[in-house]
C-alpha cells in the first residue's frame, strides 16, 4: 500500500510553469508594458544568480554578503576565455561556472565551520579580497576598467549557429539556462541533500547528531551557489560585452541579499524570482524618475522588513492560508508542510 504521506515531487509544478510561461514570453509583451529586452536579459541572469544564492541563504540559512565575488569571477573567466583562449560561448560559461565554483570552494574551506555573524563577516572578508584581487591584477583583469570588447559570439547548437548579438536571442539563451537551473535546483531541494540543508538551518548541532557531515554540506552548498553565481556572471559578461569589478563590490553583493529577501527566499523557492524581478523593475523605473532611487528602494525594503519579513512570497502564502481557512470545510490532503517546499 502506498504511504499516505509520500508525495512524490513532480518535475514541473504550476508555479514553475507559470514562471516559465510568463518569463519565456517576455520579448513578446515586455516592450508594450514599457520594459525592454535588455532589462529582461538582466532579470533572467539575476534570477539564476538569486536562485543559486537562495540555496545558501534561504535553505541553509547562511548569509553570504560577499557573493558578488563569485558572480564577478564568472564574468572574468568568461571574458578571459573569449579574449585569450577561444571564442566559444559554451566553453566560456562552463569556465565561468567552474571558476566561480573554485573560488567559492576555496573560500568555503575557511567558512564552513563558521556560523552566524562570524560566517557573515568572513564572507565579506573573502568577497573583499577577491574584489581587491580583481582590481589589482591589472594584467589579467584590466583593473578598474575591466575587460572590454568581449563581443557577443555565436552559439553553436549542433548543426545550427545562433548569433547572440541581439538582445532577444540572448534573452532566449539565458532563459534556456534558467529553465535548466530551475529544474536542477528544484530537484536538489527535494532530494535528501536539500532537506538536510534546511535541517542544518534549523539546528546545525542536531543535524550533526543525526549523522550528517555538516561541514561538507556547508562547503558543498557554498561551492554550488558559487558555481551558479559564476554561471550567471558569465552570461552577464555576454550581455554586457565586458566584465567589471563593480559587480564584486560589497554594495553589489548587498543587492543580491536584498532581492532574495524582499521576494521571500526564506519561505519559498520562488522568492528570489519575485525579488529579482521587483528589484530590477523598481530600479529601472525609479532610476528614470528620480535621482534618489536608493532612498525609495531603501524605504520599501525597510517596510518589507518591518511588516512582512517573510517577503512577498510570505504575503502570498498568508493569503493562500486565509483562502484555505475559508474553505476549511472540505478536508484537504495536502503535502507535508515544509518551510521552503515551494508553494
Amino acid at each position, binding site marked *: 500500500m502506498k504511504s499516505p504521506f509520500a508525495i512524490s515531487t513532480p518535475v514541473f509544478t504550476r508555479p514553475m510553469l507559470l514562471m516559465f510561461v510568463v518569463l519565456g514570453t517576455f520579448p513578446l509583451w515586455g516592450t508594450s508594458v514599457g520594459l525592454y529586452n535588455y532589462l529582461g536579459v538582466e532579470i533572467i541572469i539575476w534570477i539564476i544568480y538569486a536562485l543559486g544564492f537562495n540555496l545558501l541563504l534561504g535553505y541553509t540559512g547562511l548569509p553570504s554578503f560577499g557573493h558578488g565575488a563569485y558572480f564577478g569571477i564568472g564574468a572574468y573567466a568568461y571574458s578571459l576565455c573569449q579574449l585569450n583562449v577561444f571564442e566559444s560561448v559554451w566553453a566560456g560559461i562552463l569556465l565561468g561556472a567552474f571558476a566561480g565554483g573554485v573560488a567559492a570552494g576555496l573560500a568555503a574551506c575557511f567558512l564552513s565551520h563558521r556560523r552566524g555573524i562570524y560566517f557573515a563577516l568572513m564572507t565579506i572578508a573573502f568577497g573583499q579580497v577577491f574584489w581587491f584581487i580583481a582590481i589589482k591584477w591589472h594584467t589579467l583583469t584590466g583593473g578598474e576598467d575591466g575587460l572590454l570588447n568581449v563581443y557577443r559570439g555565436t552559439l553553436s547548437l549542433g548543426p545550427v549557429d545562433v548569433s547572440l548579438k541581439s538582445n532577444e536571442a540572448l534573452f532566449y539563451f539565458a532563459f534556456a539556462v534558467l529553465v535548466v537551473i530551475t529544474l536542477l535546483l528544484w*530537484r*536538489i531541494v527535494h532530494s535528501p*541533500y536539500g532537506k538536510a540543508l534546511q535541517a542544518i538551518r*534549523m539546528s546545525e548541532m542536531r543535524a550533526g547528531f543525526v*549523522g550528517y557531515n555538516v561541514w561538507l554540506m556547508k562547503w558543498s552548498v557554498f561551492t554550488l551557489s558559487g558555481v551558479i553565481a559564476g554561471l550567471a556572471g558569465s552570461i552577464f559578461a555576454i550581455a554586457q560585452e565586458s566584465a567589471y569589478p563593480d559587480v564584486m563590490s560589497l554594495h553589489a553583493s548587498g543587492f543580491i541579499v536584498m532581492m532574495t529577501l524582499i521576494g521571500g527566499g526564506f519561505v519559498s523557492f520562488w522568492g528570489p524570482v519575485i525579488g529579482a524581478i521587483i528589484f530590477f523593475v523598481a530600479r529601472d523605473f525609479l532610476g528614470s524618475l528620480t535621482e534618489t532611487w536608493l532612498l525609495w528602494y531603501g524605504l520599501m525594503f525597510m517596510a518589507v522588513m518591518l511588516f512582512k519579513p517573510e517577503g512577498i512570497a510570505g504575503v502570498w502564502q498568508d493569503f493562500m492560508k486565509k483562502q484555505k481557512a475559508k474553505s476549511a470545510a472540505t478536508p484537504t490532503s495536502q503535502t507535508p508542510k515544509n518551510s521552503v517546499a515551494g508553494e
Partner: protein
Amino acid sequence: MAFFEAKHLQKRFGDQVVLEDITLSFEAGQLSGIMGPNGAGKSTCFNVLTGQYKPDGGTVHFDGQDITGLPPRKISGMGIARSFQIMTLFDEFSAIDNIMIALRNTVTRAFNPLYDLPGDTTTMDRAADVLAKVGLKGRELEQAINLPYGERRALEIGVALASEPRLLFLDEPTQGLGVDGTARLADLILELKETYSIVIIEHDMKFLFRLADKISVIHWGQVITEGSPEDLRANEWVQASQLGEVA
C-alpha cells in the same frame, strides 16, 4: 569490556573544571541512569559521551571501538543516538519530516540528488512507524513548532530512534513535563527498553528508580556512587527525603 565504557574522563572550561574524573560503563540491553543534583556536570558528561565536546583526558569506548573525540556524525554513524535537554528539533519541518530526515536511509543518501525523498513510500512508511512508536500517530503533518510540549519531547525521542541506534542517550527527558506527561513518558521508555539499550540523564530520582537497571550518581564532576535502584534507595537520607521526613 562493557558495551559502552568511559574511563577517567576529564573536561575543563578555562579555569572551571566540570568533569574531574568520570568512569562509567553501560551494558547492552539495559537501561542505565545518570543522575545528580543541578550543576553537577551531568549535561557536560553527556555531551562528552556523545561527542559534542572532546574530553581533555580519558577515553570512551563503544562496542570495543575507541570513539574518544570523534565528531558527532561519526558517533551517530556507529549507532549512538541522543536527544537534547534544550530541544533542538527541526522546528519548521512537520513531525514526519523530522523523522524522515533522521532516518539512516536518508542520511546515507545525503548526496544523491536523484533520490526523491518526499516521494519515497518506504521511507515515509518507516517514518510514520517511528512516529507511531512514540505515540504521535495522527500528528504526522503538524509542524514541530506547533506541537505541544509533551509531544515535542516524544518527537525528540522519535528523531533519536530514527537512526536505528544500538544505544540511545536521553538527556533529561522529563524536564518541563507535568506529572501526567512524566508518567506517559515513563510508559514509552519502558516500551523502548524492550528493544534498545538506553542511557538516561535525569534529575528526577523517582523516575529513574522506576525505570533503570543501574544508576550512577554524579557530583563534583565524579561518580560519587553507583548501584541498582534498590541499593541506592536503601540510603537513609534517600528514604527520608522520599518520605518527606527531612525538610
